[in-house]
Structure formats: structure tokens, C-alpha cells
């Protein structure tokens, strides 16, 4: 198999414009002859569905939530980057491109990232035109702030609820098209299979989550915008329903899955408090602008603190280790996410962690409160402090917050070319669902940017190129391929319902999560990964022998929904481990303990691993086949990332 990235020729800055001119167009009168399916209605899906509807295509949009407004993009807090240079501080499209490539540890595709930086500018204009209430200066112009990994202020924000406001903007554009009848919306509907006819994506099989009815929908092209797969770890900052099923089942139909091991671990989350815990809550990265991260200087002091023999206030200044400021004087507490996360783990591994479990470090605002006064700090971070107190029952104005890294965003996903098309003709993947723009690590405020870039400004151009070259003939859902896929979905559901074992779905999911976190989490090594591979395989086999799913298909069945998702996570987990095992280097969110500098920094191997690892499915339990897309860097020089 040849992976053709279809990157346009020519200088970096001209590729997208040239490509837009070269793609084939669909005559406006012909657009209504094409049907497009969009799965997922977060930033990438809602913006794509709305825009494709505006263009004149017939769109069917699907989401498993009760309304497109619930998609997990809504939970993003911090902001969205755009190279507007409104602050006149030296920002440019090239600088945003450069920061993103560097921040991703040089494992992203140059052409895609440059295009992302280019269209970032249009995104802000678009959202403002929709009535998204971004933060403003007194003079009425848009305000900006800075974010980890960047030295310019290019982040646009709407308090700590930027994702919410951007999603509601896309949701409103979507609603307008629903009202016009150009988009037909299917909420509480989950995609369970992809249907291929003559080697092309021609539709999907879904389960109506209220009635349990298995239905088919046909189209000329299918766009997956289903988000990331961080919930493979059970505990993560993702919404409970976020899952990999649509993408994974497309993978099983032949779509390559790229860089699955690149998982972003966010450094500032509220630590785990007990086995019952269902999810982790992130505290915005912006807190690190004022909070100082520290642990006790010695293991002995940390132990006494954990046992409750001393209080935080008893620890003298000279007995505190502000380790980020000590090790990275230039960036201090604002080092990028992967660096901050790894160092918190190192401290806890040394036995200097805090909190009952010892798996936490302090994020301390005492100095900032002394310097600026409590009201000033409350004005900046009040809602986050309240949220922390609600969850932990501790007052962060009096005691330092306890934080620990948690699984946040997955940089891997379905392999796509420059047009965002997977290797299956007619199947597209956008937003977090694809792999293309973040490399091995995602910088803050760039996930929202990619979701909207793909949905508003990339896919509407590139999908036309495919449609124009493919006949408008409709395939109906009577086609045998649909019947066959429906039968397979029904058989799988029946199998899950008939096992009637002893262990619950959550029980399996939690065990999978522990294996993934312990062996394929913040740090990995070959031995641990080999072990995990065997463990996941055993767990998967046990799942299909001993899982307990009650009820029937023909009703709202929350256990059956979860069982389908966990079945897929079990297979995906194995692939993540496999991917981590073959990548004998450390980069971004992938830290192999065997490959580090003497100062415990990630040691990349550009000679041998500057490629995208795209995996081909060969059957459950079979070894997947690795395909490589070489990454060429013609515009940036690969250097060791340093934030010292």
C-alpha cells in the first residue's frame, strides 16, 4: 500500500491557495444531487455539516447525545489560537506554524499545519460574525492572552468557556441549515459500522439509542468527526460518552489508524480520589500563569505530610522544591504540557508526591495572592477555584491546589491525506478524529482551532474535488452491502446480550484503563508494553466470555451502548501498545524510558522515526501491518526541543 499524502507542490505558503484552485468544483445546481453523512457534531462535525448544507449538499448529521450542543468540544476552557497579530507582538502565520510543529516534536505534516495557521485567521472572523461573544478590550476590540508553549498573545477566549461559545456558534449555524431542510439531524443515534460499495465509503449503519432500531443511511461521502479516544484509559478528561467506535469500525473496514500511541497527558488535573471515580476534571492551563508548582524537598518531609503529622504551612520555604522553576528557568511553570506532566510524575516516583495517595503535586497561589491580593486572583481564576473547591472540598485560597496529570487529548487517529480523506475513497476524518496536525504533542488552544479549520474551511473545499470526480448515482440501502453490515451489527449486539457472564462492562473498562495507564501512560518501556499487550489480549478474551449485558436491543439500553464501546477500546488498546512498542524514541506525549537524555528529557530519533505510523487492520488478535509515511521537513530545522 502506498500512502499518498497528496501534498500540493510549490512553496509552503502557496500550497493551499494553489490547491484550492486546482481542485475540481461541483456546479451549484449539481450539489443537491449529492448526499453527505457527517458523524459527530462537535466543532469539526457541526461546522462541516452547516457549511456543506450552506453549499447546497444534502447533509445527514448524527450524534449519540440528545442534542448536537452537548458534544464534548463544549467543555474546552482556555481558548483558540489565531495568527491575527492584533497585539502587534510579532505573531505571524509562520510563527504559529513553527510553534505548532515544534510543540508537536516534529511529528506532524508541514503542509497541513501551515494551512491550519493560515485559516486560523478566518475562523475568528467567522465566529465573531455568528455572534460568538469573545472577550473584548474596553475600546471594543478583541482581547488576547498567551498560552503554554508560545511567547506571543494569540489566544482568543470567552472567559473559561471558549469551547462552549464556539460550539454554540457552530450549533447555531447547524440549526439554521436544519431549519432550511438542508441538514437532517439524527440525535441519540450511534454509528456502528461503515458500509463500503465497490471499495468506496457509501454509508453507515446506526443504532437508534431510544428504540434500538438498526438502520442504514447511504450517501456519496462519509465524514467522521467523532473526536478522540482518550476514554480507552477509563479515567480521562473526556466526556463519559466519548468513544472510538465509529473510527475503530471504519479502521476494521480498512481505514488506516495513525500514531495511536500519541496521547496527550494534561498536567493540571484534579487528582484521583478513589476507585469509584468516573472521570477526571481539568483545571485550565492558564492557572500556571500565577500558580507555582512544588513538592517537598525530601521524601521524609513528603511522608510526614501524607501521614498528616505536619501541615502544608509547616513546610519551610527552603524545604520546598519548585522543580519546574529550578529545571526550566526560561519557561518556569509555563513549560509545555508534556514536559510539565513528565516532571510531576518524576517527583511522585521519587516519593515526593503529596495528598493521601502520594500522586499529586502542589499548585500554589500563595505568592500571587500576597503580591496581587485575593480579589485580583479571584477575578482571574474565580470560577476555577470554585470548581476545585466543589470537587475536593478544600479551599485553594488557603491551601495550595493538588494537581496531577491526566489523559486529555489524543493526537493519533485515522490516517488522512491533505484533503482529509482516509485511504478509503469517500471516507473523511476531521478534528481530533484524524491524526494530522498536532504531531506527538498538542499545544494549548490549538484543538479548537483544528476542529473549526477542518469543518468550516478545509473539508467544504476538498470534498467537492472527490464528488466532482465521482458519479452522482445513488446507492440505496437495499444494496446487499448494507444488509450484510446490518446483519453483522445485529449479530454483534445479540452476542453481547447473550453472554450473560459475571463481570460488568465498567469492570472490564476500569481494568483496561489501569493497564493502559500503568504501561502505556506517561512513560513506557519495551518490557512493560510487551506485558500490557498480553494482558489486554487476555482481558479481551475474558470480556467476550464473561461480560454481563442485561436487557434487550429494542429499547434504551445503556449497558449495551457501553459494551459496544468497550469492546472496541479493548482492540484499540492493543494497537496503542503495539504502536508505542515499535517507536523506539521519545517524542511529545510518547515517552519511552529507554530513550532519554541524561537530564531526563525526551530523546527523539529523527534518523529512524520521522514518520507517521499508519496501521492496517488484519483481523482481531492478528498482528496489524505497519505502513510508514515519511515526514519531510523543508521549512523548519529539526532541533532538540528546549525550554530551559
Amino acid at each position, binding site marked *: 500500500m502506498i500512502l499518498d499524502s497528496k501534498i500540493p507542490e510549490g512553496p509552503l505558503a502557496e500550497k493551499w491557495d494553489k490547491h484550492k484552485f486546482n481542485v475540481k468544483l461541483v456546479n451549484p445546481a449539481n450539489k443537491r444531487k449529492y448526499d453527505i453523512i457527517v458523524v459527530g457534531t462537535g466543532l469539526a462535525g457541526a461546522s462541516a455539516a452547516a457549511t456543506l448544507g450552506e453549499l447546497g449538499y444534502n447533509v445527514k448529521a448524527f450524534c449519540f447525545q440528545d*442534542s448536537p450542543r452537548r458534544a464534548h468540544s463544549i*467543555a474546552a476552557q482556555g481558548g483558540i489560537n489565531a495568527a491575527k497579530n492584533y497585539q502587534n507582538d510579532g505573531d505571524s502565520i509562520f510563527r504559529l506554524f513553527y510553534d505548532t510543529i515544534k510543540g508537536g516534536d516534529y511529528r506532524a505534516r508541514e503542509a497541513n499545519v501551515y494551512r491550519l495557521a493560515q485559516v486560523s485567521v478566518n475562523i475568528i472572523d467567522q465566529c465573531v460574525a455568528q455572534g460568538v461573544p469573545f472577550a473584548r478590550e474596553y475600546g471594543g476590540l478583541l482581547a488576547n492572552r498567551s498560552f503554554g508553549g508560545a511567547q506571543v498573545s494569540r489566544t482568543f477566549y470567552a472567559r473559561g468557556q471558549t469551547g462552549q461559545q464556539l460550539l*454554540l456558534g457552530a450549533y447555531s449555524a447547524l440549526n439554521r441549515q436544519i431549519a432550511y431542510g438542508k441538514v437532517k439531524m439524527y440525535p441519540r443515534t450511534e454509528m456502528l459500522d461503515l458500509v463500503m460499495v465497490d471499495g468506496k465509503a457509501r454509508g453507515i449503519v446506526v443504532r437508534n439509542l431510544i428504540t434500538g432500531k438498526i438502520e442504514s443511511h447511504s450517501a456519496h461521502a462519509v465524514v467522521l468527526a467523532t473526536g478522540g479516544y482518550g476514554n480507552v484509559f477509563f479515567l480521562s478528561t473526556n466526556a463519559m460518552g466519548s468513544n472510538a467506535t465509529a473510527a475503530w469500525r471504519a479502521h476494521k473496514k480498512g481505514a488506516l489508524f495513525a500514531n495511536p500511541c500519541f496521547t496527550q497527558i494534561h498536567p493540571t488535573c484534579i487528582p484521583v480520589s478513589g476507585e469509584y471515580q468516573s472521570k477526571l476534571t481539568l483545571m485550565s492551563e492558564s492557572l500556571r500563569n500565577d500558580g507555582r508548582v512544588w513538592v517537598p524537598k525530601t521524601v521524609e518531609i513528603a511522608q510526614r505530610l501524607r501521614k498528616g503529622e505536619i501541615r502544608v504551612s509547616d513546610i519551610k520555604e527552603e524545604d520546598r522544591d519548585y522543580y519546574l522553576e529550578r529545571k526550566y528557568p526560561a519557561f518556569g511553570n509555563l513549560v509545555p504540557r508534556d514536559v510539565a506532566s513528565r516532571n510531576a510524575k518524576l517527583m511522585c516516583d521519587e516519593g515526593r508526591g503529596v495528598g493521601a495517595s502520594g500522586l499529586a503535586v502542589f499548585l500554589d497561589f500563595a505568592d500571587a495572592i500576597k503580591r496581587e491580593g485575593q480579589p485580583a486572583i479571584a477575578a482571574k481564576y474565580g470560577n476555577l477555584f470554585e470548581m476545585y473547591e466543589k470537587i475536593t472540598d478544600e479551599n485553594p485560597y488557603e491551601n495550595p491546589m493538588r494537581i496531577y496529570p491526566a489523559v486529555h487529548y489524543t493526537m493519533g487517529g485515522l490516517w488522512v491525506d491533505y484533503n482529509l480523506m482516509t485511504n478509503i475513497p469517500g471516507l473523511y476524518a476531521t478534528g481530533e478524529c484524524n491524526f494530522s496536525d498536532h504531531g506527538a504533542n498538542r499545544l494549548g488552544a490549538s484543538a479548537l482551532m483544528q476542529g473549526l479549520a477542518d469543518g468550516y474551511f478545509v473539508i467544504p473545499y476538498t470534498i467537492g474535488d472527490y464528488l466532482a470526480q465521482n458519479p452522482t448515482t445513488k446507492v440505496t440501502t437495499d444494496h446487499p452491502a448494507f444488509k450484510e453490515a446490518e446483519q453483522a451489527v445485529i449479530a454483534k449486539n445479540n452476542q453481547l446480550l447473550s453472554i450473560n457472564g459475571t463481570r460488568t462492562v465498567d469492570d472490564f473498562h476500569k481494568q483496561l484503563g489501569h493497564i493502559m495507564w500503568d504501561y502505556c501512560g506517561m512513560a513506557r518501556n519495551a518490557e512493560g508494553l510487551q506485558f500490557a499487550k498480553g494482558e489486554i489480549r487476555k482481558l479481551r478474551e475474558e470480556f467476550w466470555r464473561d461480560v454481563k449485558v442485561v436487557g434487550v436491543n429494542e429499547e434504551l439500553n445503556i449497558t449495551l451502548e457501553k459494551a459496544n464501546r468497550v469492546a472496541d477500546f479493548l482492540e484499540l488498546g492493543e494497537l496503542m501498545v503495539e504502536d508505542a512498542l515499535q517507536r523506539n524514541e521519545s517524542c511529545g506525549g510518547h515517552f519511552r524510558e529507554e530513550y532519554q537524555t541524561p537530564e531526563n528529557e525526551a530523546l527523539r530519533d529523527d534518523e529512524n522515526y520521522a514518520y507517521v505510523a499508519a496501521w492496517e487492520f488484519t483481523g482481531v488478535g492478528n498482528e496489524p501491518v505497519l505502513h510508514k509515511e515519511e515526514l519531510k521537513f523543508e521549512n523548519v530545522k529539526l532541533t532538540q526541543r528546549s525550554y530551559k
Partner: protein
Amino acid sequence: MDLTLKVWRQKNRESAGSMVTYPIKGISPDMSFLEMLDVLNEDLLRAGQDPIAFDHDCREGICGMCSLYINGRPHGPERGTTTCQLHMRHFNDGDTITIEPWRAAAFPVHKDLVVDRSAFDRIQQAGGYVSVNTGGVPDANAIPIGKSIADKAFDAATCIGCGACVAACKNASAMLFVSAKVSQLAMLPQGKVEAKTRVENMVAQMDVEGFGACSNTGACAAECPVGISLENIAIMNREYLSAKATSEHVA
């Protein structure tokens, strides 16, 4: 903590429901309310019984998917909190807790505690947007907006669409929800152009969906988890009256 839960169980939209009592033991005060229900559901599953269906997703208080009428109040006893952000430390050992779905004719029950809130989407589809296509828009700084207006519009825009306002209202009115969108867009220059038709269409749709009239008692705002202000209803009323008085839109 050991608790007694009285939970509304209803097989589907067509069948009648009833309260069922479940004792539950060993609940940690650090659990969220939904984690407590997760624990109960695991027990039910192991016993081969159908777990309780309830809506939830982000569990961070922002997606608006969680609901639950707890001890007679939407989202439970804490002010300014969604059910997913309510923790068990606000209850006492030995408590009996009553859990019901949102109660409103316009929110029919799908199953147990899950209700159908699609009426909210249809109200938004009636006009809760600015009619602008992708691309071809002016530069974002071309239309300055005063900070105080931007902030006020933002306050209205933070509505999470959970439906607590409807559940809290004795008339099951959707005025707070609808007014939040109407006033957000009416305040901003981008939304002003079609403000008249927007408010007329959204109010008309609200009536079609079967929500009741506003009774001016303010229970909606008192129970709103994100503090949407009653002022929005006043703004909507003003927008509506002036639209009707000068309407080009005869409906």
C-alpha cells in the same frame, strides 16, 4: 454513608412509571451524585437487574446533559450547581433521597430519568442564530463592541440548555432558556438585523412545543445552575413587544 433512594422507574414513553426504593451502602462523601448512581447501577447489574437510565456526559457542569429532580429541586439542593457537580458530602448518613426526571409535558420521558429535550433544539432552529454563511465575513475587529455589552451578551450566552428552568417552573415555561438566546443576539450588532423575526419565531415555537406561560415567580433563575438572569426575560419581552408593534412579519 448509607442511604435510601427513591427513584422514578419507567420502562418507556408509553408505559406508566412508579417510584422504586433502593437501599445503598458505603457511599463516600467525595463521590459526585452521578458516581453514587454509578455504584447503584453496578449493584443492579450484578443482580441481573436493569440499571437506572439517566442522562449525563461531560460531568464537568458544562454540557447540560445531566438533569435529575432531587428532593424536589432541579439539580438538587446546592445553588448554582449541575447534578454532575453535586457531591455526596451535601447529604447525611441515613438520608432518604427522592430522584425524579424533569417534569414537563414538553419533555416526555424516554425511560427512567431520561427525558426528551429536543423541543429546545427546535426552538433554536426557529431563529436562534445569525444568518451568515461560512466565509465572506468582515474582519473580526471591523465591528467594535463595547466591553460591557460583550460581557452582558456573554452572561446570556452561558446557558447550558439543561432545562432546569422548565423543571423548576410551575407552568413549565421555557422563557428563561429562550430569553437567554434572544437577548444575547439582540444585544450584539451581528444579531440585530434579524432581531424582530427571531424573537417572534422563537416565541411562537415555544408555544407550539407546549411550554407554559411565564408566571413571574422567578423559580427558573433561582434554580438555574449557571445563573442566567431574569433580566433576560425582561429584555425578551421588550424585544417581543416592539417587534409585534412594528412587525413586517405577519404570523
